[in-house]
């Protein structure tokens, strides 16, 4: 494996190993040691969950540029995008799984679903999407598996298994594979819009939280998904492919400009949301925005969100980013990571205002304290490290072992 993969793998293993302590606590004591409570029932893990789901949807939608909309310019990133979408999805589901009070009961969502809950819809859509991603990835890499199956190495054995007995076949077979990929990709586009818009809908339908309760919210989710997924893929193209920013200069520059446009849409929606909410005096709309701007987590909004996720990347992409692929790669990486702040500000401000005025003083108990500022506990951070570590390890192993940079898509008219 290449150097950057080893580095990523080692980081992943270290983070994962550190996180095991948190997972042991999680499995032993349930949710006893989390920092959130009934007043803020969804917190850090939900933030991570929508962050990774967004990365998955965004990465997948960008892969569709190659396989559905046939933009040849983005071809080298196609398989990588599908693979990134798969790993992000697995990481996201890991986060939402550990957040359940009864982890052992998650299968109930399949065998006794309540279809009036958007939560059921998205879990079912995630499941369909998961198998679609597996199928699409397999058809993309099938020929490479068959081709490499004869190598006398571990990789050869792995490829022999993954080829599932198929042969490399003729160019006609290759074309058939790509047709299947196109069909799967085409089904995937509305699916990705549905499951990520659906994730926004989970929040948007709760009229108890006026900050979320708007038609803009699911659309805002999609905009954030595309922007964060675009940022991640740009960074992957620049740094995970050896000398990617030099070898695929045009690709990285192109992705950079695409990212600039996506960030612009994101900012536009945020501005719309903020201006409308701040104009009136209704606390239900005003307070959540005010909390973001001036509350104890002001720096999450101003420095990480506005500064690192959006502001600096936009300025760089609009200036040196037009010519300098290295700069594009660096700001994309920063933006992709910093987008976590934007996800934080989607979840937490929803709880800024107590449900009934005065309830904050009515009762103060452990895990039921309206007056305390939510601070994620160590256990929450360690479990998060575990889940992120799992994602990083899977990502670097896949990158090292799978033919993600295989030959280009055969030309088709």
């Amino acid at each position, binding site marked *: 494996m290449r150097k950057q993969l080893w580095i990523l793998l080692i980081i992943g293993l270290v983070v994962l190993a550190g996180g095991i302590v948190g997972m042991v606590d999680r499995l032993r004591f349930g*949710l006893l040691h989390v920092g959130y409570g009934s007043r803020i029932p969804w917190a850090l893990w939900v933030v991570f969950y929508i962050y990774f789901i967004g990365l998955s949807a965004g990465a997948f939608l960008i892969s569709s540029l190659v396989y559905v909309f046939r933009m040849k310019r983005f071809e080298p990133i196609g398989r990588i995008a599908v693979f990134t979408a798969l790993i992000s999805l697995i990481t996201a589901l890991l986060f939402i799984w550990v957040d359940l009070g009864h982890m052992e009961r998650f299968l*109930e969502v399949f065998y006794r679903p309540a279809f009036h*809950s958007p939560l059921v819809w998205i879990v079912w859509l995630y499941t369909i999407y998961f198998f679609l991603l597996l199928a699409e990835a397999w058809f993309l890499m099938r020929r490479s598996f068959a081709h490499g199956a004869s190598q006398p190495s571990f990789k050869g054995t792995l490829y022999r298994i993954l080829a599932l007995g198929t042969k490399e076949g003729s160019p006609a077979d290759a074309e058939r594979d790509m047709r299947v990929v196109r069909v799967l990709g085409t089904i995937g586009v509305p699916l990705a819009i549905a499951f990520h818009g659906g994730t926004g809908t*989970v929040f948007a*339908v709760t009229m108890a939280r006026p900050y979320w309760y708007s038609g803009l919210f699911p659309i805002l989710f999609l905009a954030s998904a595309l922007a964060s997924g675009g940022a991640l893929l740009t960074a992957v193209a620049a740094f995970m492919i050896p000398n990617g920013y030099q070898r695929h200069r045009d690709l990285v520059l192109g992705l950079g400009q695409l990212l600039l446009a996506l960030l612009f849409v994101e900012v536009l929606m945020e501005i719309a949301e903020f201006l409308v909410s701040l104009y009136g005096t209704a606390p239900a709309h005003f307070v959540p925005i005010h909390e973001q701007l001036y509350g104890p987590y002001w720096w999450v909004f101003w420095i990480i969100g506005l500064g690192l996720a959006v502001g600096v990347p936009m300025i760089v992409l609009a200036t040196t980013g037009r010519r300098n692929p290295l700069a594009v790669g660096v700001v994309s990486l920063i933006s992709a990571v910093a987008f976590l702040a934007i996800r934080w500000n989607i979840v937490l401000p929803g709880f800024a205002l107590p*449900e*009934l*005025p005065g309830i904050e003083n*009515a009762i103060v108990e452990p*895990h039921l304290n309206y007056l305390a500022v939510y601070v994620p506990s160590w256990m929450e951070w360690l479990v998060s490290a575990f889940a992120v570590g799992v994602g990083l390890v899977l990502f670097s192993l896949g990158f090292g072992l799978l033919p993600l940079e295989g030959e280009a898509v055969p030309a088709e008219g």
Partner: protein
Amino acid sequence: MPVLTETKSNIVRMHEDLARALQKPVHERHWGMVIDLRKCVGCNACTVACKSENGLPPGVAYNVVIEEEIGRFPNVGRRFLPRPCMQCQKPPCVKVCPVNATYRRPDGVVAIDYNVCIGCRYCLTACPYGARTFDFGEFYTAGHTPEVAAYDTAPSFEYGRMHRRDPENLHESPIGNARKCTFCLHRLDKGMLPACVSICIGRARYFGDLNDPYSLVARMAASPRAMRLKEELGTEPSVYYLP
């Protein structure tokens, strides 16, 4: 038909109403509550009685009394708003539950099946009244003092079933579940009023079958000054307030 007299105690009257309602099929009952805010003195006896009756751990509260101070010290007045679960007829919490663990019973009470709830807490985010709390597995004494107090491990009899509580096993329901006021269904089944109603020192709470025009609670709910919380949301609470 019950004889209406001025001398009968409201508590006696409500017990009679209750007994009459229990004669009816369950779907013909509509349990409801009326809280007369002029009679509430803010003693929180209801909050404590509820905790005790249902064996609630720290962090789980079905009833709270919200206080508001009017004026500037020392020229102040105080206003109290007891808040049980509203037992909405169109409950937003039920609609979002992904596994039908929480549901509206034919008698109007919103219940939770502890053995089904996956603990996603979607219902907590969806309740406009903050009436649901999550059981994180806290104990008053276990883990804090050398000896575990008896009240910490005392079972709860909600829904007419026995729910044990063991500090050594934090994976047993209702730990890890959403929890809420049940109007003390287990007491109602035995012909007893909810604990908060029985305990109320100001007799501020009225309880009974809203679907029985002769019940005291139905008469109070029909008062022209009766109102409900956040009525504009269309949740149709079964709890009325007399301001």
